[in-house]
């Protein structure tokens, strides 16, 4: 419990200033939006990979690679279409979010 709060504060620090509950709920919706393919809470059933528990640095790098085309062909059937629509800051926030899901 205490550890959770500390982690949350650390996360808030890393992200810069969270001014209101809204900053959090914005990320919460953005992350939930990935759920129709990656499963509720990023826990997938079937061939699409899970996002829950992915290392943040790995996650952010993948998003950048989808966008730049470094990850392409059969290893990016659809993700380049999605990654190009989000900002670097949003990659960070989403990476943070999914890394925390057990």
């Amino acid at each position, binding site marked *: 419990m205490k550890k959770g709060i500390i982690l949350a504060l650390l996360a808030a620090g890393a992200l810069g200033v969270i001014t*209101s*509950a*809204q900053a959090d*709920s*914005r990320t*919460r*919706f*953005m992350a*939930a*939006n990935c*759920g*129709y*393919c*990656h*499963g*509720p809470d990023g*826990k*997938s*059933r*079937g*061939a*699409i990979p899970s996002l829950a528990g992915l290392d943040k640095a790995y996650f952010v790098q993948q998003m950048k690679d989808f*966008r730049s085309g470094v990850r392409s062909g*059969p290893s990016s*059937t*659809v993700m*380049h*279409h*999605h*990654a*190009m*629509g*989000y900002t670097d800051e*949003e990659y960070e926030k989403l990476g943070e979010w999914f890394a925390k899901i057990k």
Partner: protein
Amino acid sequence: MTFDRRDFLKASAGAAALGTLSACASNGGMAKSARPKVVIVGAGFGGSTCARYLKLWDPNIEVTVIEPNDVFTSCPFSNTVLAGINQMADITMPYDYVKKAVDQWVPDKVTAIDTGKRTVTTKGGKTFAYDRLVLAGGIELMYDKVQGYDEEARKTIKHAWKASPDQTGVLRQQLEAMPDGGVFVMSVPMSPYRCPPGPYERACMVASYFKKAKPKSKIIILDGNPDIASKKGLFVAAWTKHFGYGTDKSMIEFRPNNMPRAVDPKKMMVGTEFDDVKGDVINVVPPMRAAAICGMAGVRDGNNGTWCTIDYRSFESKVVPNVHVLGDSALTNFPKSGSVANNTGKMCAAALVEMLNGRQPDQAPVVTNTCYSGTGQGTGFHVATVFRYDPAGDKMVAQKGGGVSKEESELEMAYMESWATNVWADTLGLPESYKFTAKG
């Protein structure tokens, strides 16, 4: 008077989404301790998702869901039933986990809505009060726009545009009973309609079945639109590769600008402006508009009174305050898909949680759509778009980088199957132990 009623309604709907003052005021007393009441009508992709996420994100909100069906039947993958790849059971799932998540589940149909008194009444005669009403009723089919499509005709001619045993199931039986060499006549309604790629996927699925079981048979597509409305290149490529499209042996004949105007179930005929087309099995999807409940609430204000305009930040109707419209019923620049209904369910839940707690919803939401389609030949492909809200233009702007698959592939069929299980799980709250059986 310089301020007419329309402007006033517009201004107040805008204010409700922008600020939260009017939201709080209209929920009088909610700030005191009373739990805010949200009533959701319809538990399809939009309504079920909205209900689950409201409870997940703010358990204090009292959520009531009103839905007459006792099980969820998926339109996505229903075309595979026509191909004989799946049975109805494979696309039918329980509501148990939505029921468990919400405060009240009412197995009934809404027959009246009073947006002044903020109440909803069911066929069974029960009345429910709301602070916020969510209308997620999908579509209403307008049979009266097709001459002869009366109750009697509907026994023979199916639309299968709302999946059910009586629609999808019966259409499959008709295809099975059709002799080899028969003609299947199907139609595509005018845009905007539910699931833009759906009809062309249906042609693939039925062709796959014919190719295997009735190779002398033909499919005639009567399309009200001037051209294939979605993923044209990919569908034409699939029809060409698998079903001889473009040759004189083509199984599929595509006729654009051919809106069905009349049906005759005795002569088994569909009439368009140009001619009468005879079929052994006829599948006409009538024109459609936002669900009847949207008419009851007076929110069918857009596109000549057929669909509902909404504020993208809250999905609140632009004409009636405290009424939110989700999924297919809304007039948006999203395609009418299960993916969008699922996502707008979450968007609306996110906004309601903010508004009902006296905060402002996200003013620049980002949301995505992806529609996968199957060919019936073990392959699939997609179209994907990320939308970002532009407050200045009050528009959802498609971001650069969206698009379609390069080509059909088996890998994308595996992803399409995974998409289906994940969107069903997300919509209905199905646990990790749930066994999905649908194949692509």
